[in-house]
Each structure stands twice: as structure tokens, then as C-alpha cells.
């Protein structure tokens, strides 16, 4: 198990290095530069700015500086926000995005497992048909539509009550998080529901469920102790990619709900060619995702005993 984790972490590091390099090269291949936005830049000012940011150095040298700074955990200073360090931007705004994403993921996972189990239980009957119809809806409608719809629902609800119970936008309290995280998790929830449903049906047909019935176990006991745990396994494997889907989807949702998350800075930075912010956030997000996927794989090992191969002496 230890060597397995070490191997995964090492390959994770290589992946992050690759992301960092690809971002660096990709960004320098884009026409224009971060100083182009400031209209009245005299050649002298431009030269001194380039010198200050190190943009006058040849590309390989810039790459080495960039990597060595990053290894020390320093992503540099933003080009467009005066004297703000990228590390500060991440530190201030990532927790907001992470909180939103975590809540969305929890809603998606719990909802997906529950709905999937229910549809499998009521296979081809009304609850199944109804839920699967909603699932197709939730998978196909993009999140910004749901975000707007969500705001509308919250607004109507508040009007009905007479005073503002759930805020329509903004950030700060738990109530602020409810609608955005629901909207953010919806697509993933729908996807997980479908996965869980087919997984439940597959497990229901297995020999060991037949054995459980031949043992005289009650239906609820078979459902919870035998079927559910085995059916959840494939759902856990896709949680890693699901985290990716939720974080990237988060940029849009953050924008609609006016949430001060990292996504907004990320999008802004791309528009303004703010090199350091783009690189910092991309590498940070990339590393985050890579290690979340590894974490999910390790968790999987604890749920499925068959993965824990190199245990004691075996």
C-alpha cells in the first residue's frame, strides 16, 4: 500500500510539472503581452517594466526562474493588480471556491447515490421513469441556465415568504452557499445517478445477491449490506473526475452568483494575459485535481478489499 501511494504521488508530481510546462509554453505562444493593455506606454517605461518582471530575458531563462520560484511555493506578482502576489490571491479566494466545490460534491455524491438506488429499486416504474427524465434534463442543460433558474426560484420563494430568507447572490453565510452548490452539483449528480442505477441493477443480478437471498436475509438487509456497498464502488472511481467537472463548472456559477472565488480571477487573468496569475492558478488547480484523483484512488483501496493487494506478507 505504501509503495503504491508513493508511486502514485510521484506520477502526480510529473503530471503537475507537465501542466506547468504546457501552461508556460502555451501562454507565451499567445499573441500580445500583459503590458499591451496600458495604452500610453513609452518605450522607456516598457523596457523598464519588462526588466522589472523579467520579460526581457530569453524564454528558457524565464522558464527556469518560473520553475525554481514555483518549487519554493512562490507564484510571483500579478501584472494587473498592483503589487498583489498570486499566492495572496489563491489564499484569499481558493477557500471560497473549495467550500463551494466541496458542498457541491457532497450534494452530487449523496444525491447521485440516493437517486440511483431509488431508481434501481423502482426499476421501470413511475419513480424510475420520472427521475431518469429529470436526469436527462440535468445532464443536458448547461450550468449557467440552472444558475439563472436557481436565482429565479430563490427570488420567487423569498417573495412568497415576504422577506429574504435565502440570498439570491453573494457570499458569507451558509445560506449563501445553498443554491450555488446545488446548481453546481446538479450535472454531476445526474451523471452519478445514472451510474449508480446501472451499477445497482448489475449487482442485483449477481450470484452473491442470490446467495444472500438463499440465506434468508430480509430485503432491506440485502439492499444495504450486500447490494449498496458493491454498487457504490464504480461511483467512487468517478469521483476524481467529478471533482474536476465541479471545479471547472464553478467558474461560471461563481460569476452568476457573484461569489468571490478563485474562478473569477482565473477567467479575468486569461482575458488580461496576466501571466503570473494564469500560471499560478492553472498549476494550482492542476495540482489540486491530480492529487484529488490520487486521494480518491487511495480511498477506493479502503472500500474495495481487492485493491489492497500488497497487504501483510500476502
Amino acid at each position, binding site marked *: 500500500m505504501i509503495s503504491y501511494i508513493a508511486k502514485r504521488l510521484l506520477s502526480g508530481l510529473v503530471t503537475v510539472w507537465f501542466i506547468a510546462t504546457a501552461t508556460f509554453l502555451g501562454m507565451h505562444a499567445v499573441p500580445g503581452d500583459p503590458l499591451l493593455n496600458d495604452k500610453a506606454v513609452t518605450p522607456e517605461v516598457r523596457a523598464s517594466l519588462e526588466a522589472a518582471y523579467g520579460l526581457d530575458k530569453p524564454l528558457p531563462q524565464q522558464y527556469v526562474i518560473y520553475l525554481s520560484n514555483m518549487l519554493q511555493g512562490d507564484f510571483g506578482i500579478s501584472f494587473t493588480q498592483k503589487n498583489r502576489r498570486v499566492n495572496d490571491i489563491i489564499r484569499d479566494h481558493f477557500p471560497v471556491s473549495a467550500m463551494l466545490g466541496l458542498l457541491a460534491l457532497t450534494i452530487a455524491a449523496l444525491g447521485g447515490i440516493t437517486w440511483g438506488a431509488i431508481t434501481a429499486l423502482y426499476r421501470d416504474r413511475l419513480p424510475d421513469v420520472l427521475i431518469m427524465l429529470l436526469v436527462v434534463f440535468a445532464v443536458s442543460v448547461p450550468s449557467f441556465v440552472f444558475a439563472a433558474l436557481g436565482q429565479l426560484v430563490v427570488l420567487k420563494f423569498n417573495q412568497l415568504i415576504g422577506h429574504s430568507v435565502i440570498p439570491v447572490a453573494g457570499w458569507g453565510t451558509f445560506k449563501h452557499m445553498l443554491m450555488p452548490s446545488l446548481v453546481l452539483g446538479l450535472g454531476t449528480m445526474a451523471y452519478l445517478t445514472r451510474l449508480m442505477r446501472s451499477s445497482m441493477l448489475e449487482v442485483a443480478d*449477481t*450470484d*452473491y445477491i442470490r*446467495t444472500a437471498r*438463499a*440465506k434468508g*436475509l430480509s430485503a432491506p438487509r440485502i439492499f444495504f449490506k450486500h447490494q449498496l456497498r458493491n454498487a457504490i464502488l464504480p461511483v467512487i472511481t468517478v469521483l476524481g473526475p467529478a471533482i474536476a467537472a465541479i471545479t471547472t463548472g464553478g467558474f461560471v456559477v461563481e460569476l452568476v452568483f457573484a461569489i468571490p472565488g478563485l474562478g473569477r480571477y482565473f477567467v479575468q487573468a486569461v482575458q488580461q494575459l496576466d501571466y503570473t496569475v494564469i500560471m499560478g492558478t492553472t498549476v494550482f488547480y492542476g495540482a489540486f485535481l491530480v492529487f484529488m484523483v490520487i486521494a480518491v484512488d487511495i480511498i477506493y483501496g479502503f472500500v474495495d*478489499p481487492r485493491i489492497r493487494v500488497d497487504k501483510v506478507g500476502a
Partner: protein
Amino acid sequence: MSDTPVLKVENLNVEFATFGGAVRAVRGVSYEVYEGKTLAVVGESGCGKSVTVQTIMGLIPCPPGKVTAGSAKLCGRELLTLSKEELNKIRGAEIGMIFQDPMTSLNPTMKIGDQIAETLVVHRGMSRREGLTEARRLLDRTRIPEAAERARQYPFEFSGGMLQRVMIAMSLACKPKLLIADEPTTALDVTIQAQVLELMREIQREDGMSIILITHDLAVVARMADDVAVMYAGEVVESGPVDEIFYRGSHPYTLGLQQAMPDARHDAGRQLDAIPGSPPDLFAPPSGCGYHPRCPHAMQVCTKASPASFEISPGHQASCWLNHADAPRPETAASPVGSAQE
């Protein structure tokens, strides 16, 4: 055989509704299992052997499955009309069941000990700890070495033969009156087969339970059975004590099965005589006797009327018109042993 049977199946009919119509998988099956005895049910694949026992256990999905007629009584108590709760009290407690493929028949994410203990917790009201202690004893009894350690392992850490021992231990946990073994050795290699069968026999001697052994291996039948029921196309075509079936087989299908079996002593190098063709499509079973399209002795009557059950000797019945008083006596039907050596 004087006492009442542990299990008595009478005129059982099971159908499966499919898109193309009803498949009549079991057509009027009757057999009896006596205390401490083993009934072997033999026949090709798709003859309704498994469906019959799964119906008794309430394991066929309904729908599409449906019992259209018949009864199955455990010690005089009707099983087919029980509610789910009542049936659950019998399954695992009074009837144990083991299956063909032990590798897939155990929950892959649950420890062996827990899977055995579960039966005891549910039926005997034991605590988990008591159940685990008993599970270790049962594993010990089915001769699994280092039972205590093995109980903490998962199915994937066991070999096929060991897993079938686990299945036996699990099905015997509550000392059932009847053990149904649905092709318990088909997925195992031959040396392991012998060990598993020997284990079943030994436990049967000690506990006095009855066994229904489903198999298509006549060598296994000879080794294990007291009585035999030969099934074909969803019907029992011949039944009786094991010696009667082997030495005085009176149905052409029984004889066909015997001739398809290799025998090292008598006929090394002989070409085995497989029965030509395959079992009929049970969407539309053949008219008359289900075996007539493949039967070398088929007569006109066989295509028209279902044969009655003829008593060959006490307890030995065969459903074949050849046993009718008016039937011609072909050599094969009258002296099967002679014909096999021709």
C-alpha cells in the same frame, strides 16, 4: 423410505413470460427427498433442474417467472404459498443452498467470517461476536486450515475449492434439514471435486440432513446418490433408487446419458456415443413425449401422446411408452447393460 419425505414436490409447473411468449421451463415435476438421503437430479443443461430447486427456494424472479401449478412441501408444510417473511425464516435455516460457481457466489467486499455469521445472526439471534465464533468452528469443520485467520479474509483471497467449503459451512450454519447443491463441483477441478463431495457426505452422515444434488456428472451421481431423478425438457422422465437407474435404466434418455459417459474399466478407447441434437425449445415443447425427436426408439404413439409413468419396480418409474405392455421390446430398453457393451 417408510417415513414421510423431507421434501415432496408435486406436479410443479413453472413458466417464464418472455417477449416471444411463455417458456414452459418446468412441466409437472414431482420428486421426493427422504431424511438423511441424497437425491441426485440429472439431465442436460436447460432441462429445468435448477429452475425447479430455485422455485422451491423462491429464488426465481416473479415476474417473469410464474408457478402455474403444483406444490412443494417441506416436512408437510407448503413452501410455494408462503409470504416473504415466512419464506425468509425457512431459507438458510431449514434449507441451505450452495451454488455452481463459488468464486462469484460470495460477496466480494465482505469478510468470510461475517458472511457466515450473518446467517446465524439473522436466524439464531446471535450477536456478531457469537456468530463469528461459530463461523470459525464451521470453517474448522469444513476443514479449512487456520480457520480463525481465514475468517478475517475476503473471498478473493481463497481458491475455488476453499470457497466452496466456505459455501458449505455457510449453508450448514443453522443445521438445515435439507441442503440443495446446484452443481456444486462443476466449476472445480477433479481432485477438489472429490474432496468437496466427500465433505458433503461426511457432514450428511453426522447431521442426518437430506441433500438434493443437481449435476450432469453421472460419476458424481454414482458416488453420492441414494435416489435419482432424470430430467428432460422440464419433466422427470425416470426416477428411482440409484442402482435401479444405473443397472435397469428404462428410459432411452437415461441410457443415452450413460452411453455418453466414459468408463475407464470397460471400454478404454471406445468412441463415446453422444445423444444427437439438443434439448427442445421450451417455447413450444414437442407434442407427445418431449424426447421423441432425439429418441432412437421413437414410435408413432410417442409423437402423439405423453407417456404415462410406468412402474418398473417398487419406487422406480419411467415415463416411456416402451414400458407399455403392448410395446415392442427393443434390446436396448430391456437390457441396457448389454447394449452398452455392443
